[in-house]
């Protein structure tokens, strides 16, 4: 297990380095003066110089890469361009906390629903229940979050007082008020991700139910509930764990549209605001933080899978 963890961790570090190279290269290979693009067309020469200075654009690409690598490990991405006195990390940290709340609440609604849905579909394979779950889930997945967001906004938030238009509760609100405000965006997350996670769970469950150990258990006369509890869960949920791991990073940073529609100051909106105000350090810092979260999430997911299924450790050592 120790060897597996080390190897897996090493792979994550390599991936992080490649991301750093890509993010460093982007402004350098963009046509025209990157500082002018970043600072905006009307920026004064002094401003351009300070942009160049703070991003190190006059240095060699290697130096820039070294600086950016250092920022990732010290979590110090310098100062914001547009908000005087604010550090990038200060802004990102506040947004990260907001995103964590929204993602956690969404997962609490999403995971039980979609896992139960997927298992039910697998258990009732080829029945109308199965087809309904699979087809609705499929149809709704990959609808952009902002589309689902504006639809919920107009059919739920406007006519029904209980649902709030803004997801961000006023400061100092009670726990339940905060949840009430986050209800609609969490619905959107469920709408968009239900189909994907239910499908993966369904496939995993069908494989587990088909396996010899489950057949044997059924034939021994063990009740359906116990077969699921003792034999199916552990095996069926491995693909689900992997998928949730990879989707976590997307949930943290990829829901820009959703955060804008519900006016929620999470990572996505912070990054988008940085785009609009040409605050490149915040944009870059935010993207890198999301990449780090993604890697941590997939790493943890792989470790959980290895813990659930010892064979996975061997497989990944053989092939990668």
């Amino acid at each position, binding site marked *: 297990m120790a060897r597996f963890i080390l190897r897996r961790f090493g792979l994550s570090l390599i991936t992080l380095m490649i991301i750093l190279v890509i993010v460093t290269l982007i*402004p350098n290979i963009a046509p025209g003066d*990157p500082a002018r693009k970043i600072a905006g067309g009307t920026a004064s020469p002094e401003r351009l110089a300070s942009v160049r200075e703070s991003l190190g654009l006059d240095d060699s690409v290697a130096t820039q890469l070294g600086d950016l690598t250092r920022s990732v490990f010290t979590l110090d991405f310098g100062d914001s361009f547009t908000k005087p006195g604010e550090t990038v990390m200060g802004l990102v940290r506040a947004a990260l906390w907001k995103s964590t709340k929204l993602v956690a609440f969404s997962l609490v609604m999403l995971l039980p629903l979609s896992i139960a849905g997927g298992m039910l579909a697998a258990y009732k394979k080829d029945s109308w229940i199965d087809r309904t779950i699979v087809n609705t889930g499929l149809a709704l997945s990959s609808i952009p979050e902002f589309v689902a967001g*504006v639809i919920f*906004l*107009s059919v739920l938030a406007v006519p029904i007082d209980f649902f709030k238009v803004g997801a961000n509760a006023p400061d100092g609100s009670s726990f339940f008020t905060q949840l009430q405000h986050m209800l609609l965006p969490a619905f959107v997350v469920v709408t968009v991700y239900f189909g994907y996670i239910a499908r993966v769970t369904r496939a995993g469950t069908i494989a587990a139910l088909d396996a010899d150990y489950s057949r044997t258990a059924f034939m021994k006369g063990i009740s359906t509930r116990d077969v699921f509890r003792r034999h199916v869960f552990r095996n069926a949920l491995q693909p689900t764990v992997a998928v949730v791991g990879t989707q976590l990073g997307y949930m943290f940073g990829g829901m*820009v*549209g959703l955060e804008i529609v519900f006016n929620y100051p999470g990572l996505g909106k912070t990054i988008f605001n940085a785009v609009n105000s040409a605050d490149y350090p915040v944009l870059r810092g935010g*993207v890198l933080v999301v990449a780090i979260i993604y890697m941590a999430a997939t790493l943890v997911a792989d470790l959980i899978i290895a813990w659930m299924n010892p064979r996975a450790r061997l497989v990944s050592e053989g092939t990668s």
Partner: protein
Amino acid sequence: MSDVSAGPAVGGVPEPDGPDEVVQGGTRKQIRKEQRRVLFTTPGFIVGMAILVFWVVSAIAPELITDTDPKLPVRDDSGSVIARESPSGEAWFGTDSIGRDVFSRTIHGARPILIVTPIATLIALVAGTLIGLSMGYFRGWVDEVLSRLVESVLSIPTILMAILVVFTFGKTDPVIIGTIALLFTPPIARTVRAAAIAESQLDYVTSAKMRGERSLFIISREILPNITGLLVVELTVRLGYAIFAVATLAFLGLVGGDITDPDWGIDVANNWGRIVGEVWWPTIFPALAIASLVIGVNLVADSIDRATKS
């Protein structure tokens, strides 16, 4: 592409003796025909295709469906602009805050997204297939290096990477197409790589190697025809994601061209703030258009996927 997928029977190339060539007394041609017959009678495929055809017609010839100008305000007989008019027999989807006809804008809005997304997806498919085939066939250190590269691109949410690139390179259609193509190449390469590895272990590839065929021949004439089903599925699935990405970029204002042109994402962005004031129609109709297009593409992708696996 099409003469390759029609099989090596064209042009006197020997039939690959793959395991799926003779199954239960049917040749591959017959199997394909059977798959197509199953596909064309699947309800999901028919509904999905109907949606797609409707939007493609709207994109190519919107004037067949509506003759109202999407960019000019609707005026009443006295010449004053009818703004924020709720849906009625006159304006089916109502008018927006400066009096433009929402139905006409929704129909005309199909064009930009249906130009950008298929081009981007096709480029990604060609590049991803080439890279994935060489990774899966040759393996070795090139595969290792490219695999790491693929994984790193996949570990940044597509939409964030697209924002970063489009912001730095400029908001133009070629940049958006290039960005989407670049971001979708790695996941396609990964899928194709896995399929190429599986195919490479089959007897027909081994025997082609024994015959002393060149790698290029084996990859293009032996393996490629056997994974066309997978490629079609991949094309449609990625098209769905491309619509997702491009619509979101437009909603965020990262879009090429004139922002007064009808575009679903831009129209939602310009109008959703008025939902709270109960003016929902200029937002909801373009939003539903995006949703229906994605649902249509998903239904078609899923039906093709099932047909090729049946």
